[in-house]
């Protein structure tokens, strides 16, 4: 973090900084990152956000968001 003082903490998505628009929801982030919400899950600050709560879960500034899906493996 640079400079002088108390700016808002940095939100990250999948480890990278992201400046989410105020009021962005989990659903908004999924729509931005994923061609389809199928087979996708979201965690904010280490807690899974149920799909049913995506539309109503606002991403607070400084949150650490993970958006995951299936990958070859296992």
């Amino acid at each position: 973090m640079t400079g002088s003082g108390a700016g808002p903490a940095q939100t990250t998505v999948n480890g990278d900084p992201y400046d989410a628009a105020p009021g962005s929801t989990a659903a908004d982030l999924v729509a931005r990152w994923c061609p389809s919400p199928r087979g996708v899950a979201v965690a904010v600050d280490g807690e899974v956000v149920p799909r049913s709560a995506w539309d109503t879960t606002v991403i607070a500034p400084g949150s650490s968001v993970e958006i995951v899906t299936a990958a070859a493996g296992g």
Partner: protein
Amino acid sequence: MSADAAPDPFVIADTEIGSRLIMGTGGMTSPESLARALTASGTALATVAVRRVDPSTRHSLVDLLDGLGIRILPNTAGCFTAADAVLTARLAREAFATDWVKLEVIGDDRTLLPDPIELVDAAEQLVDDGFVVLPYCGDDPVVARRLEQVGCAAVMPLGAPIGSGLGIRNPHNIQLIVEQAGVPVVLDAGIGTASDACLAMELGCSAVLVASAVTRAEDPGLMASAMRDAVTAGRSARRAGRITRRFVAEASSSFEGMVTPESTVGP
């Protein structure tokens, strides 16, 4: 297969799985190659890892598996701690709408051997949270029994380290695990070729899980079909009841009624 053979369903957690060959998707070079191999394997259940979305990826593994009618078994591959594995399992449950999880908690990234302490801890937490837990474990019968005691729906001992292709390093321990288990035993990891899968079934495993041996074979589709045949053959051999091993011979032809030079001389 004998037409008289009794039905032999493969059941985990009251759910019948249509094939005793479970496939891993790791190591495949392309979606097309994966689809070919999965189809050739005849599998009904395939594992996937849970990873951050990659916006540059065009294809969807979920769509590929759904299209083939293959049930998804999410895997906590890459997790080193119970906490990581539990979070990954919960993400997977949400993403794929399944309570089933292949639980993998490893102790180091060179051998990829399971960490039994973190593994049992994670298994307990996930069973309590309503998951159907299929733990990938070492070939230690004590740990296998512990996993069953905490409520796992199967136990999945390795034959050898993941991707090593070394086959079943300790068949004695696998037999011990099979003998004591009240849940299905799935040989998972280290299978290198068809005979390894066949041996696992002959030792009494209920199923095998194969990934690298197929995905990294020169011809994955052909190896997948070999594995399919091997699992069928091994299972039938097990059910057929093999002969015991003998230190010396047992003649398969009776000595009675033999013609010898002496017996042909007239009175």
